[in-house]
Each structure stands twice: as structure tokens, then as C-alpha cells.
């Protein structure tokens, strides 16, 4: 069925929802003909769906991550059935380290997003992040890291666990020269009023202000932001770390 015909038909059908922009976060073979897709869509957030690849119309699709798809599915349970899938464009060409970063994003989203909770802004931010990765020439980690940090901070904001870095926990404006420690669920605590549990996360007010402004030009800020994001995400991920981090072993990440 051509795309235009489908659109016209889908408008009149109440059984399937309209086609939807979605990215495949992960795909795995269920049996010889069925592939289970973990999708990240704008209106429905994370959705799990199965596609029967023995059908003529689904046979030649590659089901690759980092590629925008137009997808429609049906089904009332959490496990949907793909009715229509078509790549909207080519895969976003991620090279070298950028593929690792893309895999890291996908694992993070798969672990942290709730099923079928709308995330329209996040999908577009995800898409932009992938495009930013693809647009880099040198692909050095120095360039990739700030993009990753911005995504992590944005994701935390969207999930409702955003880091509040402009004031300390009592609402006082940060003093650039004083030291603060970041404590999960409390925020920034002035050093002295709290016994540090993690000495790595003590930085000056200036460092936190620059992270809040998403300014990662300085190597020291980059390092502080990495530790801060890791700590904030670890609290949400539970005891199981992100496996994709192992890929960066030879990258000095």
C-alpha cells in the first residue's frame, strides 16, 4: 500500500492508530518470522511491538536503529502488532565512536523510559542528538562528550529528575568560590553542613553554574558533568550499570 493511500485509509480507521514517527531502540528475533521491536515514538513514548517479517510488505525492511520510521500498530495490550512500517529516510550515519554513543543512548532510553508515556519533545531531542553525532568530523570524544552530557541532562529533566544546579538546597544563590557537594534527592549542599559521602562530587559553585548553563568548554567542567550525570543516572538505573559503557574501554571515556 502506498504511503498516501495508507494515510487516507488510516484517517478513516479507528482500529489502528495513525502512522507515527518512531525510532527502533532495539530489535531481536523472536522466531524465524517474528522480530520484536522496542520503539521510541513521539506520541506513545516507548512501545514494544512485533513485526511478522514473512509478510511481503515487511520482508525487506532492515529494522535498524538510528533510522526514522513511519510506523502504525494495533493491539490493546502492551505488546503491539506492527501494521505498517516504512523508513522515512536513510539511517543517520554514525561512525566509529558515535555508534557507541548511539548505543549508549538507546540502552539508557530503554532502561529509563516508562512504556507508553508520551515523550514528543524527547524524541526530537534524541533525533537532534544523533544528527549532532553524525555531523562531527573528527569524532574525538572531546567533541562527543558535551553532546552526550546535554542529552543526559535533558533526559533527567524530561523524566522529572532534573538537576537543580543554580541554587543550593536551601534556595541560596551559589557562591562561585565556595565548595558544594551534589547529593541525590537533595541537590547542592554547601560543604561543611553535610558530611561528604562521595568526595568526587565536591566542586566549586562556578563549576555547577557552568554545568547548569551547559557550558562544557573546559575539561574540568566536562569531567565534573560526567561524574554528576553518572551519579544522578545511577540512582534511577538501580544496581545494574549501563552495559554500553564497556564499549568505551579503548576510547579513554
Amino acid at each position, binding site marked *: 500500500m502506498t504511503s498516501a493511500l495508507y494515510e487516507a485509509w488510516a484517517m478513516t480507521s479507528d482500529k489502528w492508530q495513525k502512522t507515527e514517527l518512531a525510532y527502533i531502540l532495539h530489535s531481536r528475533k523472536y522466531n524465524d518470522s517474528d522480530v520484536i521491536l522496542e520503539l521510541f515514538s513521539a506520541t506513545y513514548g516507548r512501545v514494544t511491538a512485533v513485526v511478522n517479517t514473512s509478510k511481503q510488505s515487511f520482508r525487506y525492511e532492515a529494522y535498524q536503529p538510528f533510522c526514522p520510521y513511519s510506523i502504525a500498530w494495533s493491539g490493546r495490550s502492551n505488546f503491539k502488532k506492527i501494521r505498517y512500517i516504512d523508513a522515512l529516510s536513510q539511517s543517520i550515519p554514525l561512525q566509529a565512536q558515535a*555508534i557507541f554513543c548511539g548505543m549508549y543512548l538507546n540502552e539508557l532510553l530503554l532502561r529509563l523510559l516508562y512504556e507508553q508515556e508520551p515523550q514528543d519533545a524527547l524524541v526530537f531531542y534524541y533525533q537532534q542528538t544523533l544528527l549532532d553525532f553524525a555531523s562531527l568530523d573528527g569524532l574525538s570524544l572531546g567533541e562527543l562528550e558535551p553532546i552526550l552530557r546535554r542529552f543526559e541532562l535533558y533526559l533527567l529533566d524530561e523524566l522529572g529528575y532534573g538537576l537543580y544546579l543554580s541554587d543550593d538546597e536551601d534556595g541560596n544563590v551559589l557562591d562561585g568560590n565556595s565548595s558544594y557537594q551534589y547529593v541525590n534527592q537533595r541537590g547542592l549542599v554547601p560543604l561543611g553542613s553535610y558530611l561528604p559521602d562521595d568526595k568526587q562530587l565536591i566542586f566549586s559553585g562556578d563549576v555547577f553554574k557552568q554545568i547548569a548553563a551547559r557550558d562544557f568548554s573546559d575539561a574540568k567542567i566536562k569531567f565534573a558533568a560526567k561524574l554528576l550525570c553518572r551519579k544522578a543516572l545511577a540512582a534511577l538505573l538501580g544496581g545494574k550499570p549501563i552495559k554500553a559503557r564497556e*564499549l568505551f574501554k*579503548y576510547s579513554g571515556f
Partner: protein
Amino acid sequence: MFSPLIDRLIQALKRLPGVGPKSAQRMAFHLLENDRESANIIAEALAAAAASVNRCELCRNLTEQNICSICDDHRRDKSVLCIVENPADVVALEQAGSYSGLYFVLLGRLSPIDGIGPKEIGVDLLGHRFQHGELLEVIIATNPTAEGEATSHYVSQLAKRYEIKVSRIAHGVPLGGELEYLDGTTLAHALGTRREL
């Protein structure tokens, strides 16, 4: 409906890829009704293979010896190593007949979401091979999927640490194929990696 032994046989056959309940039932009845001799041959071959086939200590391919026949063949070029995802890829490359170096089978590809990281694809053994082998070139023949590309990049980083030349098999238009039926991504890739004549 079936007696316990027949039911057990059908259930066992169903475990094979591509075999559903109907095919399993057909196979079971064929073996029991018409071809008892084949049934015994299959049973013996399966039991013997399952008991003695292991992984080659050098390349992780399937073999009943400690070192497989390819790694043990002194006529093969020991300075080139081709890295593939599965034992079936070794068979495909051997059938193509144009490669005479050695292989290394990863038994998978990097897929962190599935819990497959560098350790699971035998990077330790591969690193040891890079360090102590007489390798001059590593050819990476993982599949052209996102996961295959990630694996390729990881292995190439590892090989470059030991200053070994790394190459990747080409992807593009299949021989005898027609451009008009090719998907855009493959075509774009084929154009991007064109070569001068």
C-alpha cells in the same frame, strides 16, 4: 493424543529452527514409520556431535579437536586474520574460495542491550592473538548492521593498539543485482565507497 515417547520426539524436533508443530509431527512420523535406519543414524550422529564438538582454542570455531583444521593447516596464510560473527560465516567465506588466511569467530556481535559486551565476544582471546600472533592484517567481516559496525570499530581499535593493518569488507551492489531495486542506504554506501578505475 500421542503416546509419551512420540510426543517427546515431536517436542524435541520443534526446538530446531524453522520447525513448527506440523513439521515436527511430519518428521517424527516419517522417521518412525518409514525410515527407522535414518532415525538411528541421526540419533547417533547427534549424540556423538553434542558430546565431542567444542570450540577451537585459537579461533572459537566449532570442532572436535583442540585446534580446528583451518587453524592447523600449514598451507594457510597465518599473517591474515578474518573476523566473523558466526561459524556459518566461516563456511560462507570458505565456499567463496578466495580467502586463504585464518579466522576468528566472535560468536555474536556487540549488543549491550542484550547483555553482549566486549568480554562476551571473546575480546580477551582476540587481544592475546593480536599480541602474540604473527599478524600483518586483520579483515573485519561482521555484518553491515549497526551492531556489526560497532563490533567492527571496537575490534579495529584493539588491532590498531598492536599496530596491525585493519580492513573492512566492502558493502554495496550485489553481483547481478539491479540498481533500481536496491535500498537507498546500500546505494548511498556503494556510492560513498566507490573506487577509481
